[in-house]
């Protein structure tokens, strides 16, 4: 009995959170039923732990312990602090040139902080809340269902309070990047958000998602999901940045489906937060689809950053490239898990994955787990993983040319990260990442 209790304890704790939150969750009737089922699915596992293979290196029972109560609905003061936090982040961490912002504060869309009007007619933006609350929309419950699921995605479906639902019409080429900004203003609270992005045939867009902690907001937990459909011959650049407050926990899931000849350039960056996990599940569902997924984890102190990638080649003639880099200092812990699955029909798949970690201190840790699951026989697939310290010979060369130890290290780390960062084709997004990486390097002691 005791054993059973301890095993389900994290589930019970969040059980109360779910019950308490219930009055605040949008969508009645069938939506509520879907939430209840999602919550049951979550409860069967509770917070994922190291005995679940996919979470082996990121044991949320140890790292998070429990799910905090839902953040209260932001009042005027909270919204003002959120606005200040967004402005301050732009100064401290850089801003994406020309971006139209969609801001969610404590898990709720904040229209007065957002630039919807500037996006034009060819982009439709609604809030998840209004879609879920619209009884005339029979398919609204689908927004809480995903083909791929795990405990944290199920918990997200159960608890989600809001998000944005973006549709870019066929053939539209967005000139401005869209930036979804999540702001936490409350301490010791959680937020659950879910956004949908649908790119019509031949559409082109750049979409960024980032997280900010307002002044004084400590120990915040965010659970976010983004569900993306890239239509036939559409082209999406997507950047996911976790540069949260130093004590934040962030679990983000991205679920992507690519149509025929669609292109996705995905970049993940983790350079903040106490515990971060970005997990991307990408299905190449139309022939000729091309995926380029790259990322960097920059960790220090006792930060834990996990980038997990599942690339699912479902049809023939698709290409995927993945290149990940981690620079880990102090007692940081970086995790990269990458799996390429090639389904039986997916002949002529060309998939490659490379991950490299740079350990900048003796106590830094990096776990790399690349995997291939190939069920077709005519494919080209490969993966590699490496980790090590900075090359002493290169360091000496640079120091003999007058660079201090710190400058020499910074230059070599920059070069190491550059190979992943260079893959960001959109210059506005690339510049943003470069500035964040430079700030990280400058802050190294």
């Amino acid at each position, binding site marked *: 009995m005791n054993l059973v209790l301890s095993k389900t304890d994290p589930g019970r704790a969040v059980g109360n959170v779910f019950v308490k939150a219930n009055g605040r969750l949008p969508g009645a009737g069938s939506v509520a039923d879907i939430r209840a089922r999602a919550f049951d699915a979550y409860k069967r596992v509770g917070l994922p732990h190291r005995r679940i293979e996919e979470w082996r290196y990121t044991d949320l029972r140890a790292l998070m312990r429990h799910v905090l109560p839902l953040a209260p609905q932001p009042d005027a003061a909270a919204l003002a602090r959120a606005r200040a936090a967004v402005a301050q982040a732009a100064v401290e961490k850089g801003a994406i040139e020309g971006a139209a912002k969609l801001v969610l504060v404590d898990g709720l869309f904040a229209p007065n902080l957002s630039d919807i009007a500037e996006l034009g007619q060819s982009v439709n933006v609604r809030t998840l809340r209004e879609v879920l609350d619209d009884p005339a929309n029979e398919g609204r419950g689908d927004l809480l269902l995903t083909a791929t699921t795990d405990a944290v995605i199920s918990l997200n479906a159960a608890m989600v309070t809001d998000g944005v639902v973006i549709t870019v019409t066929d053939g539209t080429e967005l000139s401005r990047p869209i930036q979804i900004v999540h702001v936490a203003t409350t301490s010791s609270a959680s937020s659950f958000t879910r956004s949908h992005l649908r790119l019509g045939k031949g559409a082109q867009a750049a979409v960024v998602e980032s997280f900010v902690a307002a002044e004084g907001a400590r120990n915040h937990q965010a659970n976010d999901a983004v569900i993306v459909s890239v239509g036939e011959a559409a082209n999406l650049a997507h950047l996911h940045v976790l540069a949260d407050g130093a004590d934040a926990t962030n679990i983000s899931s991205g679920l992507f489906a690519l149509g025929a000849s669609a292109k996705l350039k995905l970049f993940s960056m983790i350079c903040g937060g106490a515990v971060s996990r970005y997990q991307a599940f990408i299905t190449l569902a139309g022939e000729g689809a091309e995926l380029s997924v790259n990322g960097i984890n920059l960790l220090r102190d006792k930060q834990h950053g996990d980038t997990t990638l599942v690339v699912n080649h479902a049809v023939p003639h698709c290409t995927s490239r993945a290149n990940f880099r981690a620079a880990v200092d102090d007692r940081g812990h970086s995790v990269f898990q990458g799996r390429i699955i090639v389904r039986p029909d997916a002949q002529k798949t060309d998939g490659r994955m490379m991950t490299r970690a740079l350990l900048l201190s003796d106590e830094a840790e990096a776990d790399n787990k690349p995997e291939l699951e190939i069920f077709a026989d005519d494919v080209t697939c490969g993966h590699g993983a490496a980790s090590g310290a900075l090359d002493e010979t290169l360091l000496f060369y640079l120091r*003999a*040319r007058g*660079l201090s130890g710190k*400058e020499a290290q910074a230059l070599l780390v920059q*070069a190491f990260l550059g190979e992943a960062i260079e893959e960001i084709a959109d210059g506005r997004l690339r510049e943003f990442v470069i500035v964040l990486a430079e700030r990280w390097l400058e802050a190294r002691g």
Partner: protein
Amino acid sequence: MALLEVKDLQVRVEDREILHGLSLSVNPGEVHAIMGPNGSGKSTLSHVIAGKPGYEVTGGQILFRGEDLLEMAPDERAAKGVFLAFQYPVEIPGVATMNFLRTALNAQRKARGESEYSTPDFLKKVREVAKSLNIPQDMLKRGVNVGFSGGEKKRNEILQMALFEPSLCILDEMDSGLDIDALRIAADGVNALRSPERAMVVITHYQRLLNYIVPDYVHVMAKGRVVKSGDKHLALELEAAGYAPFEHAA
């Protein structure tokens, strides 16, 4: 005061003593050649002067303009005017040559309390020097030494030397891996930098290089010490007799 004064230098690598009491004095404007067989400690000397980790100095001193060089970090030595042209210049993928040159030059200037170069002045200077060394512009855009031939790597070292304007240049086996044309270009680059204020220590196994860079003094090293010193004629003697008599003498 001598520019460089090496006094009774003893150096160990792990448990093996490589230099057993080496002395050398170099004045501004002089070119010294250090010759010797493989394993005589020539490269160890150059590494210890530049501050490469992994060497333990167990005795003696190295003074640079009277200051204790061994107390300085490699970057401090560079800023003071010590330059080592590497026998094997390293490749640094992802660091563009131009960016590297500018970062290094400004780091040295900053350490000396001088103002940083403006971008136009810097570019002008690099282009001039690169042209004189037959270094094409596109090489400067590539990663440091990445995909460079042996000759190009050595010319890149001399380019740095010309740019940083050090007062002591140590050329470690500059001739290794170079054909005669590449050697001539590199040597012309070095000769152009000879000046009354600048000293050079040319480390080489072969006399050939000294036809192009004519030294004022030649020192023969064997088994970790200087066993004979003379003028440029000593190099010719060596060419005729080989190192064997000197190794015996050591």
